[in-house]
């Protein structure tokens, strides 16, 4: 119990339980599998948004290229699934059986070397974690060691997203081009397209999301979490306190990249295909917006923000297909102008004090300034206030 206490305050524990209840109980009970699958797809974006909370909200590093990592994770998974779907028997009609169909259409007669290892599920799962990390590390090391930050970092990551999209589309023989990698069927022989599989994948996705929330919470609760905020506010001070600021930034950027990649892989599994339209600039910015709507400082907020925006998108576009962009655009402006702390800010100002009063026996109080990270309600600093 002490472990739980040091990791989650009461408020946060309740937050986590509510998210878990929503994912595991409320949604499956209230939705048919079609809606649930949709909901599962939204949740994969929440991985990216949580990463952005750490990277941008806490650390002040705005990446407009998270789609790159989402895409890398998704493509790794898709490559494995595509190879499994492209058995010589299933592709007997091709001029070269046994390779993915789009390769055959592009006169590729043998599997390219970098596809080979994706025959192995172990390699694939490792690759989902390692490749985006390495890529993020290279970008991060190049930029943060040279103190590229703020707006410059945002624009360069955006350019990287653009480059990767053009590359994927241009190299269609190796990547499936603009159509992406489609028609994915089975995972180790298990058909991922059945309703039953969709339920299973949904729960796996939900479980992973909870795990990622806990892991992120661990990072935020550690000294590193406070250092991130410190770097955001006074980078020089951190440096002159003997820390290598670039390493801290590289770490959090890589961490966010891994989370995005996990989201991407789960996306591929649940949606059944991967295409360059999740890599580019537009999806990358949208993911930032999910995070902003959630309130950029709260990992739970990020989950709700993602769900809210996507739900709004789907609903608006069903009801007012010609008008929904007005609503969406207006939402972004409102979030920036009127609710800069997003959903979590609203929660903190209106609901949190109420919840606090309900759950505590009048001990702790909430800080007035929502921009600060949650205080350690049970930390030693509070336990023995100085006299």
């Amino acid at each position, binding site marked *: 119990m002490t472990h739980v206490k040091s990791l989650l305050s009461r408020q946060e524990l309740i937050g986590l339980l509510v998210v878990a209840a929503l994912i595991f109980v409320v949604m499956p009970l209230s939705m048919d599998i079609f809606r649930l699958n949709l909901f599962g797809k939204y949740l994969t974006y929440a991985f990216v948004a949580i990463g952005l909370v750490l990277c*941008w909200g806490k650390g002040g590093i*705005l990446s*407009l290229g998270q789609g790159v990592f989402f895409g890398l994770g998704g493509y790794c998974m898709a490559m494995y699934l595509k190879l499994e779907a492209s058995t010589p028997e299933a592709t007997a009609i091709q001029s070269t059986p046994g390779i993915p169909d789009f390769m055959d259409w592009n006169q590729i007669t043998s599997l390219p070397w970098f596809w080979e290892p994706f025959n192995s599920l172990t390699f694939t799962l490792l690759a989902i974690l390692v490749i985006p990390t390495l890529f993020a590390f290279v970008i991060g090391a*190049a*930029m943060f060691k*040279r*103190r*590229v930050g*703020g*707006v*410059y970092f*945002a*624009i*360069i990551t*955006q*350019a*990287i997203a*653009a*480059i990767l999209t*053009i*590359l994927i*589309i*241009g190299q269609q023989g190796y990547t499936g081009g603009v159509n992406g990698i489609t028609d994915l069927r089975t995972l180790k022989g298990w058909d991922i397209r059945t309703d039953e599989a969709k339920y299973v994948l949904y729960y796996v996705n939900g479980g992973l999301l909870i795990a990622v929330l806990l892991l992120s919470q661990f990072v935020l609760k550690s000294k590193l979490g406070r250092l991130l905020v410190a770097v955001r506010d006074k980078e020089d001070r951190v440096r002159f306190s003997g820390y290598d600021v670039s390493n801290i930034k590289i770490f959090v950027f890589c961490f966010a990249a891994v989370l995005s990649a996990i989201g991407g892989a789960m996306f591929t599994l649940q949606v059944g295909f991967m295409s360059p339209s999740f890599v580019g*600039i537009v999806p990358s*910015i949208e993911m*930032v*917006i999910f995070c*902003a709507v959630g309130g950029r400082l709260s990992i739970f907020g990020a989950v709700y923000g993602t769900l809210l925006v996507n739900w709004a998108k789907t609903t608006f576009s069903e009801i007012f297909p*010609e*008008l929904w*962009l*007005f609503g*969406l*655009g*207006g*939402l*972004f*402006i409102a*979030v*920036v*102008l009127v609710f*800069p702390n997003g959903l979590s800010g609203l929660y903190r100002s209106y609901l949190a004090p109420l919840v606090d009063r309900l759950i505590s026996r009048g001990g702790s109080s909430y800080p007035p300034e929502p921009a600060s990270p949650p205080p350690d309600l049970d930390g030693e600093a509070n336990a023995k206030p100085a006299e």
Partner: protein
Amino acid sequence: MFADYSWTELGSIFAMQGFAGLILFSVFVLMALGLAIIFGQMGVINMAHGEFMILGAYVTYLCSNIVETYIPSLFGIYFFFAMALAFVAAGALGALVEWSLIRHLYKRPLDTLLATWGLSLILQQAYRSIFGAREVGVSLPNWLLGSVPLTDIIEIPINGIFVMVLTLVIAIGVYFILFRSRMGMQTRAVVQNRVMAGAVGINTEKVDRHTFALGCGIAGIAGSAFTMIGSTGPTAGQLYIVDTFLIVVFGGAASLLGTIASSFAISQAQSTMEFFLSGSMAKVLTLLTVVGILMLRPEGLFSLKIRR
């Protein structure tokens, strides 16, 4: 690849290619100048820059239709009115946006990115609702079409010359406004030290609004000019945004001269590579080079070493 051609042919082609590079250069400068003012001087990340350009294009479209229908005798010169109107329309919208949105966000540059992205969605949908989802064709006076043949192979596109002259005029205009006029002095003063500028009696709010409107207005002119070479549709503005930001950042955000230098470098690199490689790879390589150089030299091409 050149074995089959005579020297004259090659010479002509390189001249043409050089000219193509210059046109691209002008296009880039025109695209980027407005943003260089807004982003470079004010620090506002205006993701709706492309939509301001398209506003200029739609204004030109309306002008062409109205003039063609009601005063066809003036059709030959309507383009100049159209550009002036495009400047006014985009500038006015810019002032409105500054007043309602941007001025609340000067301390939060990254948030301007989100807000203006929202704005760009709204503008796109507005164009779609007003002008339809399809691209519109802007008819141009005949003298703007076609080319001037110099030799058998060398032909100079008239609209290319037009864009180059226009770019030159606007660049000089911007130089005078920013570096030779009182408004420019005030703008630079506000950029460097807002509090101090306010203290010495500069109306910083007004200066901000004018600067933002100026940047948007130039975007409007650019959009108007681009009806000669590109498409006019609700989402056409999106095509420009990445290139434009890269140019400004590559030039060193705070330096207008840098923007021009980087337009030149990128346009020459791109048109040379396009000639020797295929189109897509040229684009990828150009972007990669720019990103690579930016990683090595994050401050961009032109930046002053300053004491911190």
